[in-house]
């Protein structure tokens, strides 16, 4: 009965217990080998007749005749680097550690502040705190408008491209690429807990080398081929969803809130796993390299916008150089994740892993919302997070039989993002898009077939009449901003007609004169936008018939003529863009993120 000097309250029921089952919480287990190893070690202890260890739950079930103390268990496992953090009486069903944990400094507490006996409850509270802090930071950062409105335009210097990279790495690209990188590096740490900082940093190095190499080469390819290597919005959405679900699962695994998730680990087929990991004991450098290379195709607004810019330059050299400099610009942001995750040790390491896990889960949930919006599902999942606390919904004023709805766009946020309107009464939707950046400059309401450009200098008014109760969602052209929504409640009178779309105020389309300038443009993988320069006469309506041979992805799905506030969604096949030039000069047309695709020369 080797009771050490530590306080143990079980003297009362310790005598003459024939068999007893106990649960011990064990920290430091990573795999099945740990289970076997611990089982072997604990079985050797006197009085213990059966041991069953689960690394997924981080606990061991002990069947014993004499109850061992935490100290004894720790002594048996210390050499292998595991720490027993709590001992639970299975029959009583409660954690005995809860009451006494503060006066029991175990051997694993050498890192200081935390007591060895972390009960599950306490752990959850801690995770809750981390969660709260990160959500608060997130909301504050969004409020401060950290995403500056960079215009991507022709002739911008490489210095600007570098700056865009810097910003991208801490904003939109961080959401997907950074999040996944964080998740994988944290997982890598768990798998190889004994690596030195340098060894941990190695995969990050390969990741970034891969990223830079692929950006440069593919950038040059895009420039040379003059075609886009982006994927359709639907596919982008699906990839986003898959990556995000993986992020949420990995994050929750790291938090160990749901033990069953550990069993659901993302395992590679064994043959592949052996090749990637085990043949060298360490992770093969090719794996992070390829992962880095694949980020070229990851959904990130800035990356896509630059790919389109590169496309418009039509030069392999400019293309390669631009993407090279952009990826170099993202280097500080992404490398700092690597450096941070490699350098931390001890108590910091645990806190880092926990914070990383929470961030990964949040980004995952946020991205799933984006992905769903893009993939076409009208689920307002992200809005609870991104709506910036305007959950109450916007005010709707009724004037002259019209429901007037006012909304403003700030960077990528709709404020407010939710309105309740009445069925059958015309809606006048006044949108202040002066603060909109990037793709938020184009508003898309899929269910009404509305795609509108929000001019940077005035208020846009869109009119429609909701004809049936339900939800109408809207977002930016890439699904990054929003979604916001109208909740249509049943009205007193039913209108019989479908959705009536009045032309928006700013669009002075098709004057009565019969004369029209008809132009044609083809969009194909081989030639991009071809031709992309047109000469038109002023004062006569222009009809540009666009024949899209390929499905256009991301911001490319929408063509803008910013000077005339025209936004045109490009479907697969033929569609027509209309506007009337009123002044002589050059009228550029761009993608929805402002990247120049071509021009009309008005004479």
């Amino acid at each position, binding site marked *: 009965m080797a009771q050490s000097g530590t306080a143990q309250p079980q003297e009362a029921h310790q005598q003459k217990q024939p068999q007893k089952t106990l649960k011990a919480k064990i920290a430091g287990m990573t*795999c*099945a*080998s740990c289970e076997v*190893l611990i089982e*072997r070690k604990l079985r050797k202890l006197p009085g213990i007749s059966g041991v069953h260890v689960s690394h997924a739950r981080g606990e061991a079930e002990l069947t014993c005749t004499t109850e061992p103390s935490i100290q004894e268990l720790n002594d048996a496992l210390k050499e292998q680097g595991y720490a027993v953090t709590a001992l639970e009486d299975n029959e009583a069903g409660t954690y005995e550690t809860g009451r006494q944990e503060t006066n029991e400094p175990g051997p694993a507490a050498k890192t200081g502040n935390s007591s060895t006996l972390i009960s599950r409850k306490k752990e959850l509270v801690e995770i809750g705190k981390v969660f709260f802090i990160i959500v608060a930071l997130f909301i504050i950062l969004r409020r401060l408008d950290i995403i500056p409105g960079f215009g991507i335009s022709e002739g911008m210097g490489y210095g600007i491209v570098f700056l865009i990279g810097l910003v991208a790495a801490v904003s939109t690209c961080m959401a997907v690429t950074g999040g996944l990188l964080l998740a994988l590096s944290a997982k890598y740490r768990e798998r*190889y807990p004994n690596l030195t900082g340098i060894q941990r940093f190695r995969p990050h190095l390969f990741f970034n080398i891969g990223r830079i190499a692929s950006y440069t080469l593919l950038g040059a390819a895009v420039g040379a081929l003059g075609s886009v290597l982006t994927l359709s919005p639907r596919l982008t959405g699906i990839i986003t969803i898959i990556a995000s679900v993986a992020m949420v699962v990995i994050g929750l695994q790291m938090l160990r809130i749901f033990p069953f998730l550990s069993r659901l680990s993302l395992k590679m087929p064994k043959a592949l796993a*052996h090749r990637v990991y085990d043949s*060298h004991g360490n992770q093969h450098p090719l794996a992070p390299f390829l992962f880095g290379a694949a980020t070229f195709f990851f959904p990130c607004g800035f990356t896509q916008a630059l790919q389109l810019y590169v496309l418009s330059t039509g030069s392999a050299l400019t293309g390669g150089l631009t993407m090279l400099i952009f990826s170099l610009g993202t280097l500080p942001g992404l490398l700092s994740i690597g450096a941070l995750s490699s350098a931390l040790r001890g108590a910091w390491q645990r806190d880092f892993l926990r914070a990383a896990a929470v961030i990964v889960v949040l980004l995952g949930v946020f991205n799933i919302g984006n992905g769903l919006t893009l993939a076409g599902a009208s689920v307002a999942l992200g809005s609870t997070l991104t709506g910036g606390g305007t959950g109450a919904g916007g005010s709707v004023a009724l004037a002259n039989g019209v429901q007037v709805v006012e909304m403003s766009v700030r960077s990528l946020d709709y404020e407010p993002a939710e309105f309740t309107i009445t069925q059958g009464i015309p809606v006048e939707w006044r949108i202040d898009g002066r603060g909109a950046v990037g793709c938020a400059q184009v508003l898309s309401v899929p269910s009404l077939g509305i795609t509108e450009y929000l001019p940077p200098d005035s208020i846009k008014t869109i009119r429609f009449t909701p004809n049936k109760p339900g939800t109408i969602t809207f977002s930016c052209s890439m699904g990054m901003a929003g979604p916001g929504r109208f909740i249509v409640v049943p009205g007193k009178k039913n209108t019989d007609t479908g959705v009536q779309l009045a032309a928006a105020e700013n669009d002075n389309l098709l004057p009565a004169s019969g004369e029209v300038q008809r132009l044609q443009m083809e969009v194909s993988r081989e030639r991009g936008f071809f031709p992309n320069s047109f000469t038109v006469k002023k004062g006569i309506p222009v009809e540009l018939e666009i024949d899209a041979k390929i499905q256009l992805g991301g911001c490319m799905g929408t063509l803008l003529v910013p000077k005339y506030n025209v936004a045109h969604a490009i479907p697969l096949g033929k569609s027509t863009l209309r506007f009337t030039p009123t002044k002589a000069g050059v009228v550029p047309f761009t993608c929805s993120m402002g990247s120049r695709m071509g021009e009309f020369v008005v004479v």
Partner: protein
Amino acid sequence: MEEVERMKTTMTIKGTHCASCKALIEDVCKELDGVTGCTVDYKTGKTLIEHDKELDMKRLKKEIESLGDYKVEGK
């Protein structure tokens, strides 16, 4: 005391990926009759076994492979 002839055998164990694997395999090997020492490098899988001349290699191999997803290669 009779002098027992000692031998060293190296082999490669595939599937070792962490320090626990190393600890586990070493622990098990050392308990086998005839094995006096065992060192595993989990990164490369290279394993050095010190043992008496008469050692049932088949049994050793079986023991190791039964511990998990390991594969003993070489002798």
